[in-house]
C-alpha cells in the first residue's frame, strides 16, 4: 500500500477525533440533558445514508450511459456503506428514543418505518448483486434497482413533514425549528468528519471490488489454460449453442 492511500483514512480518523471532542464539548441540552449528544452520531449517519444512496443512483445512471464497470463498483460500494449507516441511524435513534420518548420503536411513525423499509430495500440491492454472476447483467439490474430505490430518500427525509410523526421535524430547515448556536458547530464538524469516513470507506471498497473482479477474471483464464482450452465452464441459464 502506497503512502498516498493512507492520507484519506488518517484524515478521516483525525476528523472523527475532533468531532468526538466537539460532541463532548457541546452544551448540555435543556430538556434532554446528555441524551441530546447522540445527535452528533445520529444526524451524520442519516445524512451519509442519503449521500451514499445518491451516489449509488449516480453510479447506476453513469453505468447505463457509459457502460464503464468503475461506475458499477462505485454504486455497489456506496450502497454497502449506505446500508451500514442506515443501520447506525436506526440503532442510535432507538438508543435515544428509549430514554427520551419512552419507547425504542413506534410502528405508527412514518420516519421510523420509511427508514426501516429503506434499510431492507438496499439490503435487497446487495442481495441482488450477489445473486447475478454475470458482471454485465449484474451491473444493469443493480443500476435499475439503484435508480428506482432512490425514490425512498426524499420520502424518508420529508416523512416528518408529509404526515404527523413521533419523530421531530426538520431541525435545520423546518419552519418551527430552532437550534442553539452551541450545537450547530459540533454538528457541522461531525457531518464533515462522517463524510470523510464515507469517502474513505467507499474508495477502499471500490478498489477492493476492482481487485476481486481482476482476480476472478485471472482465475477464469487460468482454468481455461489448465484444461488446454478444450472445455468451457458450465454456463448458468441454459446451455450455449456453439454452431
Amino acid at each position: 500500500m502506497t503512502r498516498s492511500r493512507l492520507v484519506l483514512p488518517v484524515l478521516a480518523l483525525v476528523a472523527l477525533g475532533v468531532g468526538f471532542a466537539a460532541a463532548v464539548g457541546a452544551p448540555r441540552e435543556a430538556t434532554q440533558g446528555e441524551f441530546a449528544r447522540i445527535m452528533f452520531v445520529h444526524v451524520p449517519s442519516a445524512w451519509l445514508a442519503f449521500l451514499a444512496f445518491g451516489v449509488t443512483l449516480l453510479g447506476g445512471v453513469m453505468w447505463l450511459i457509459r457502460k464503464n464497470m468503475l461506475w458499477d463498483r462505485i454504486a455497489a460500494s456506496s450502497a454497502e456503506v449506505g446500508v451500514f449507516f442506515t443501520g447506525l441511524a436506526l440503532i442510535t435513534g432507538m438508543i435515544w428514543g428509549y430514554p427520551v420518548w419512552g419507547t425504542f420503536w413506534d410502528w405508527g411513525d412514518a420516519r421510523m418505518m420509511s427508514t426501516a423499509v429503506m434499510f431492507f430495500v438496499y439490503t435487497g440491492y446487495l442481495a441482488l448483486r450477489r445473486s447475478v454472476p454475470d458482471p454485465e447483467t449484474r451491473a444493469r439490474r443493480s443500476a435499475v434497482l439503484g435508480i428506482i430505490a432512490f425514490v425512498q430518500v426524499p420520502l424518508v427525509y420529508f416523512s416528518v413533514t408529509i404526515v404527523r410523526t413521533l419523530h421531530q421535524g426538520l431541525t435545520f430547515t423546518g419552519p418551527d425549528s430552532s437550534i442553539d448556536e452551541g450545537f450547530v458547530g459540533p454538528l457541522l464538524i461531525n457531518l464533515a468528519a462522517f463524510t470523510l469516513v464515507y469517502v474513505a470507506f467507499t474508495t477502499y471498497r471500490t478498489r477492493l471490488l476492482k481487485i476481486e473482479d481482476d482476480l476472478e477474471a485471472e482465475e477464469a483464464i487460468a482454468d481455461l489454460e489448465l484444461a488446454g482450452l478444450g472445455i468451457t465452464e458450465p454456463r448458468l441459464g441454459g446451455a450455449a449453442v456453439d454452431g
Partner: protein
Amino acid sequence: MPHKSFLIPTIGLVILALGYIVFGGLNDNLVYYLTPAEAVERRVDYADGDRFRLGGFVEVGSVTETTNGVVFTVVDEGVSVDVEHTGSPPQLFRDNIGVVVEGAWAGDVFETDTLIIKHDEEYRSTDGEEPYVPPAESEG
C-alpha cells in the same frame, strides 16, 4: 436497452404511489395522532373503548400523580382534553412537553396506558439556565 419497456411503467407507478402518499395519503390510517381539537370534534366517531392516539402538550400545572399513574390535561390549539394515564410516565414527562398518549375515551376523560414523549425540533443549550437533572442521577 431491453429494459426500457419495463423501466418506464415502473417509474410511472412509483411516481403515482409517491403522489398518493403526498397528496391523497392524509387519511385516517396515516394520521399518527389526533390533536385535542380533532379528538373532541370527532368524539362521535370514537365510542368509549375505541383506541386511538392523542397528541398535544401537557398543560402547565395540570399534572397530578395518582396511586397508579398520572392525571393531566393535553392541550393544543386552545382545546384541551383531560387524560388519565395508568403506569409511570417517561423521565422527561413534565409541564409543557409534547406527548402522544394511546387509549380511548371514557366519558369526558381520555384513558390511556401508553404515554410517550414527542420531543420537538428545538435544541436549547443550558447556558444561563438551571440544568435539568434526570431523577436517576439526582439520587447519587
